[in-house]
């Protein structure tokens, strides 16, 4: 029974994905249809157009196995094995440095912002 419920809920999430793809296509939006679907679903949950119980088990299951879902796409690296040689290794270093810069920038900005508005102190009192 639980299995069927999960399948039905995933089908519903598929519906939102499909809806997002259609919006993206018709309105010619520069963002992926899946993200549009995410926003539509989030909106629907916020205004309670859809009770969270309709999707929570399906969404929970998909997110629990999320890392499995992108395995097939990652295996595609098999067509790029030549890539991992010589100069291209430098890109890995670039990604590491850029990631740490990103962490520093976003963390610092939000911490300063939170302190300025006194949210942290308000919370701890």
């Amino acid at each position: 029974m639980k299995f069927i419920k999960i399948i039905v809920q995933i089908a519903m999430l598929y519906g939102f994905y499909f809806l997002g793809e259609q919006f993206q296509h018709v309105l010619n939006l520069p963002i992926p249809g899946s993200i549009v679907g995410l926003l539509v679903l989030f909106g629907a949950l916020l205004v309670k157009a859809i009770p969270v119980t309709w999707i929570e088990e399906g969404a929970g299951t998909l997110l629990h196995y999320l890392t499995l879902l992108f395995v097939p796409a990652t295996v595609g690296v098999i067509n790029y094995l030549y890539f991992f040689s010589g100069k291209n290794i430098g890109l890995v270093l670039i990604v590491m440095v850029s990631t740490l810069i990103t962490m520093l920038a976003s963390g610092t900005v939000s911490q300063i912002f939170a302190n300025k508005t006194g949210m942290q102190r308000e919370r701890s009192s």
Partner: protein
Amino acid sequence: MMVAALVGVMMVVTTLAVFLIMARLYRRFPLPFLMPALTTTFLLVIGLLAFNISYDTYMIGGQWIDHLLGPAVVSLAYPLYRQRHVLARYLAPILTGVLVGSMIGMASGLLFAKVFGFSEDLVYAVLPKSVTTPVAMQITSQFGGAPSLAVIFVMVAGYSGVVFGPYLLKAAGLHSFIGKGMGMGAASHAIGTAKAYEFGEDAASVSSIAMTLSAISGSVMAPFIVWLFY
């Protein structure tokens, strides 16, 4: 037709079986380089090479799993909804952190790669490195880059955040749960969020929000940043 279906089922079953075994191994030894997605991919690549099976043949079954990525991205609305009170309470610092993170994350990666003379298709694979995998793949393919390479860089961004992040956050004086969670989620997406649980529940909530919103802002900003530099 029959043969294709059979091959497809075989590939799906193999992928599932390897993943479940690797997940069990990871539960036993929770080391970053033993994360199931990493080890499963590694073993499947070795297996395909050993048996001389092409990626196209593997994808006869692989695409069935691939099809679930769309609804999985939609599912991210669910944790975001559950964290809506945290989001509403810290809306301004969270949104600023996400926007600054997306902008600097994508612009710095693109600029470095461009300055060091890497080709355009590689630059597009680097671009969405701080965005969660399924969305990063879509951003890269949108510009004609290789999604498989994008996944590799997303992994590198995730693990470098997990390995070096804690030292960096400490050195930079980021002690609040907002600063730590935002840094982890905006730079290192889901892998960073998993690490953020070690900083506490608060930091993990912020990190999970940061990761979801970064996926949204990353996909909105990517075309703009590419347009700016090319």
